[in-house]
Structures are given as C-alpha cells and as structure tokens.
C-alpha cells in the first residue's frame, strides 16, 4: 500500500488547467522532490495533497484512505511553508503546540510533546521566545518543529530553505536528511535548488506546465533524461544542445553532420533501429567535453568568457554555429577568452540524442566511433 497515491489528478483555476492528469505513487518513508520551472504547479500539487486546495478531478489517497472531503488537519499530513508562517503573537512553544491545542490534547501531554520535538531540533532555550526574536534558521526549525509535534505520516515542504543564506541552507539540508532518517516518515519536498534535489531525493519528480515529465532517482534523471526539457532543466550549468543533421541511416547506425566540427560527421549507434527525422539534437553535459585528448571528431569554438569557481572553470562559447557550448575544465590553468577558436574534444560515448519533438532517443552506450 502506497503512502500517497495520486490517480489522474487535475486542477483548474477557472478554465485555466494548472495540473493535468498527474499519476504518482509514493512509497512509505520515501523522500520525493518536486522540481520544475516557476509556475509549473509544484505548490498547487502540494496544496492539493494536504487539502488546502480542492482537487478538480482525479483521486488522492493517503495511507490507502481516499481523501475526498477529508479536512487538512485530519489527513495525517504536516506542511512546512516557505515563509515559515509562524504565528507572530505566540511563543515558540505555543506555535508548536497549537495543533495539539486544536485537537484538545491535555496540557500536560501537550507540553511533553512540544518538549520532545524541541529536543529533536535543539530548540530548548527558545521555547519562550516570539518568532520575531529568532533568526531565519531558528524560525525554520520552529516551523519544522510545529510539523513534527503532530507526528504526521507525511511531511510536505514547500521550498523551506529558500529564504536562508547559502551556508545555513547546506546545514539545514543535512539536518533535514538526518531528520528523514530518524523519523522514517514520508516526505515530499519542493525546491528550485538542483543540489537540494540531487542530494535529498530518493526520487525526483520533474514537472512542467502541470504535467510530470519524468520520475526517477536523481542519477536516472541526470544520466538518462527522458526528453530535452528534463535534460536541460536538471544539471547546472546546463547541458549544451547542438543541432545535427541525419545524413545516413543504416539499421541502428546513424551518421550525423554537425556544423563547426571536424571531421564533419560522426557515427552513432542507437539501441534499436528507429526512423529519425532529418533534424535531431545532440546533448552534451559540461563535464563531457575534453579540452585535451578525447577521441573522435572535435568542435571548433571561440571561448567568449570563463567562469572560475576555484577548482573547476566553466568556459562559455555561445556562438558556436551548431548551438552554444558550456564546457567544464578542471585543469589548474583555464583557457583564456580569445578571438581565436580552440579545438574541443567530446566524450562521444556520453552524449545524448533528442528527436525533433524533444523526446530522447536511446543510444547504445560505448559503441560510438569516429567516421
């Protein structure tokens, strides 16, 4: 029995369809991360799961029970909001105990449960303070504490760390991972942050315009994106996309011509024979370019600017004729921007191929050779 089950769930505001036919099954204790561009419906999906937003059509069940008409507080679900949403006029203890007060839990037990949650999150000394007397990180912890106190089966987080500074985010991220292990509860987490998604998730759900584009483990999503959108969305900096022309197909063998490459064509083997349109797109992640070495055809590109991150550098070549390139270089001395083009190698066995409509074409890995 799944912890959360969405069957063909849809949501419209007026006649604007915001979520369209979402199917998702979340296992007990799983950590699911929703990612997607702004406005794609991540928050709406969360709000439908917790009952703050009615579902237009489709079915939702939590712990095997249908949730139609069940009040938010009765779903065994707790939500942590982006802006914390702490009650400003209550102390930390009152904030955390409010849900228990609403359930008419006796005062003694209420205090004990608040204290237990406060210990888990190291909030002990702060119990008597008001939210405005807390730092951002402390407020976030109180918001999480308020969720824990209710002892829910499911936690929902809507961009909980986006208001914190970089260092605190890393720290809270680790704490959340620990908390997940400790409580063993099911968690659904919305974020814009790639690192949060990759490091926290058991499975990532990539959304676009209210549709699930792909569900998979972080590595699946990264290594085998199902379409060009997912490939471009996950990974930072982005995958480079190069226009390519199909010049010859024979069985599983395809020969592609790419502008600004020498030699001008490359042979690629598909997993299974497939008819391709004339135009396809090659996808190459920054780490799959080689400034030195590498086999097969090489690209000529003029490096426009260089981002140095200390260890790695990212070279940008936006005006390559087949499409802009972003190249990772791990050498100590990075290439300098220059008017003269440089030659860039490609890890051909690692490239991705997308059909004209954007869907990924499966390749036979480690079977690519130069023409």
């Amino acid at each position: 029995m799944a912890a959360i089950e969405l069957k063909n769930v849809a949501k419209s505001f007026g006649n604007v369809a915001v979520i369209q036919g979402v199917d998702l099954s979340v296992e007990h204790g799983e950590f699911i991360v929703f990612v997607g561009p702004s406005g794609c419906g991540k928050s709406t999906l969360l709000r439908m799961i917790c009952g703050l937003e009615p579902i237009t059509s489709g079915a939702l069940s939590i712990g095997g029970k249908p949730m139609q008409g069940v009040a938010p507080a009765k779903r065994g679900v707790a939500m942590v909001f982006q802006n914390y949403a702490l009650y400003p006029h209550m102390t930390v203890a009152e904030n955390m105990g409010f849900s228990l007060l609403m359930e008419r839990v006796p005062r003694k037990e209420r205090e004990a449960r608040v204290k237990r949650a406060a210990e888990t999150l190291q909030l002990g000394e702060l119990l008597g303070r008001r939210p405005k007397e807390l730092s951002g990180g402390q407020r976030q912890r109180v918001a999480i504490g308020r969720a824990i106190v209710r002892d829910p089966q499911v936690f929902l987080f809507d961009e909980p760390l986006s208001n914190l500074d970089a260092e605190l985010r890393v720290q809270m991220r680790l704490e959340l991972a620990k908390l997940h292990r400790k409580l063993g509860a099911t968690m659904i987490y919305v974020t814009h942050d790639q690192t949060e998604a990759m490091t926290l998730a058991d499975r990532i759900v990539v959304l676009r315009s209210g549709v699930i584009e792909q569900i998979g483990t972080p590595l699946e999503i990264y290594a085998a994106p199902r379409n060009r959108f997912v490939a471009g969305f996950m990974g930072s900096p982005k995958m480079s996309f190069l226009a390519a022309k199909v010049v010859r197909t024979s069985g599983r063998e395809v020969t592609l011509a790419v502008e600004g490459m020498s030699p001008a064509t490359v042979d690629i083997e598909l997993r299974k024979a497939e008819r391709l349109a004339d135009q396809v797109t090659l996808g190459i992640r920054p780490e799959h370019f080689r400034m030195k070495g590498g086999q097969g055809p090489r690209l000529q590109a003029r490096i426009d600017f260089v981002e140095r991150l200390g260890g790695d550098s990212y070279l940008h070549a936006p005006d390559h004729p087949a499409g802009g390139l972003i190249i990772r270089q791990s050498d100590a001395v990075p290439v300098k921007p220059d008017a003269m083009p440089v030659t860039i190698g490609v890890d051909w066995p690692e490239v991705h191929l997308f059909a004209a409509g954007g869907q990924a074409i499966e390749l036979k890995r480690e079977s690519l050779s130069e023409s």
Partner: protein
Amino acid sequence: MPQWLERELEERRLNRLDLLIWPVGLAVATLWALPFVWMVSTSFKFPADVMTQDIEWLPSRVTFDNYIKVFEYPVVRWGINSLIQATLATFFCVLFGAMAGYALARMHFPGRNLLFVIFLASLMIPVEVSVIPLLLAFVKVGWASSYQALILPAIGNVFSVYIFRQFFLTFPAELEDAAKMDGAGPFNLFFRIALPLARAPAIAASVIIFTLNWNSFLWPLLVTFDESMKTLPVGVAAFTPVVGTRTQIEGYSVAMAAVTILSIPSLLLFCFLQRYFIQGISQGSIKQ
C-alpha cells in the same frame, strides 16, 4: 536654497517637500485648535469677561464657578449613561466590525463584493431619514428611553467593517493555511489567529467609534424621554443659552465648561492611543 538650510534639513532627516508641508500642517493644526482653546478659556471666565471688545484668548481672571454650576445638574448620571452607551456600543461595534471585515476580506462566498458595496452605499442614506422609523420601532417594542435603545442602533457601523476589511485583505494567507493545517476551524482561526493580530485596526476603530458614540446627539436626544436616561451631549445641550435673553452671556461660559468636561474622555483616549491610531488608519491605504 542656502547651504545652512540644506545642512539643517539633512541633519533632521527632512526633505525639501517637508519645508512646504510643515508650515501648512502647522497652520491647519492651529486653525483646528483655536475653537478648542476658546472653549477651555471661556469655561474659566467670569460672565463679565465673556464678551469683550478685544479678544481675550486667555482669561484675565479665573473662576471655577462655571464648573460648579454645571454640577448642579445631574451631569454625573448623564456621564455614566454616556460611558455605558459609548463603551458597550464601541465594544460590539468593533467586534462585529472585525468579524464582518474578516468575512468580507477572507471568506469566499458569492456576492461578498456586492455586499460590501451595499455596506458602503448605506453611508449615503442620511441619518435623518432612518431615525424616525427607527424611533417608532423602538417605541413599539417598548424599548424607548432605555440602554438598549441607546446602544443597539450604534452597533452596526460600516466604518468599523471597512477598516477591518482593509486590514484583513493584506493579512498573510500562509498564516491562515498554517492554522488550517493545525486543525483550526473558522472560529479558532478568527479568535486565536486573525483577531489577536488585528490590534492596530482594532485600536483605530475603537478610538473613532468611541468618539462618534460619545458625541452622538440626535438619536439619544430623540430616544431618551426622561432626565435620568439622557446622555451627556443631550443633557449639556440644555445649557445652550437662548439668544437675546439676559442669561445668554452667563449661560455661555457654563455651556463651555460643560462641553470641556464632555470632550475629556475622547481627548484622553486619543492621546494614549495616538500611535496605534495612526498605524491603523494608514494600514488600509499603504501596503507594506
């Protein structure tokens, strides 16, 4: 602009526009204060000094006789009536105003905007139109000249609804969502979350409505038939000197003493709550 002036402005964190606004504001404030000063000053004058050739802003001789004369009337009783009337009416008016304002701002029910427009439109009906039917109704029910008669009609006040509606429109939706997740129904949501956070509009509405009720005249005048149910403004109105009679001048200073007493509570209220008052008024117009 001379340099010393610029430096002065900078030091006081004022901008050039303030140079214009402050004198105008000061002039307006003075103009508003003049009648008040005149009232207080006259209340301490001997009858002979009330009408003089030259304007006497401050009394040359001071007497408390006028105040003593005021207390020959049942002003204490009237004051208590006024206090009961104004306090209870204000309390319920603010409470119901907060409830209605909350519902109009945060609850989604069909026709809520129409309802609000109707509320506002009711402001266009002059009191004089509704006061007679209302009086007849109270007489018929047998509630004339009673506290119910003084208080009940004052409870419905659009201004209070308005000020709370504007406040709750800017109230963070996430707080409500959080409370719903915590299991709060509409009742707890309002009394435990929304209302405690609405202190600024509550104080602003209280001051305004209290003053309004404290000073209300026409309705209490019509609905109180016996001396013991009169409110302070109604009672004090009897002091207004009849023009052209011998007692005119004497009555004038006594009336001023009575009105001075009348204005004290509103004044105190405003002084103590001024900070919140301004906060609450600007809340509706300026979004943070």
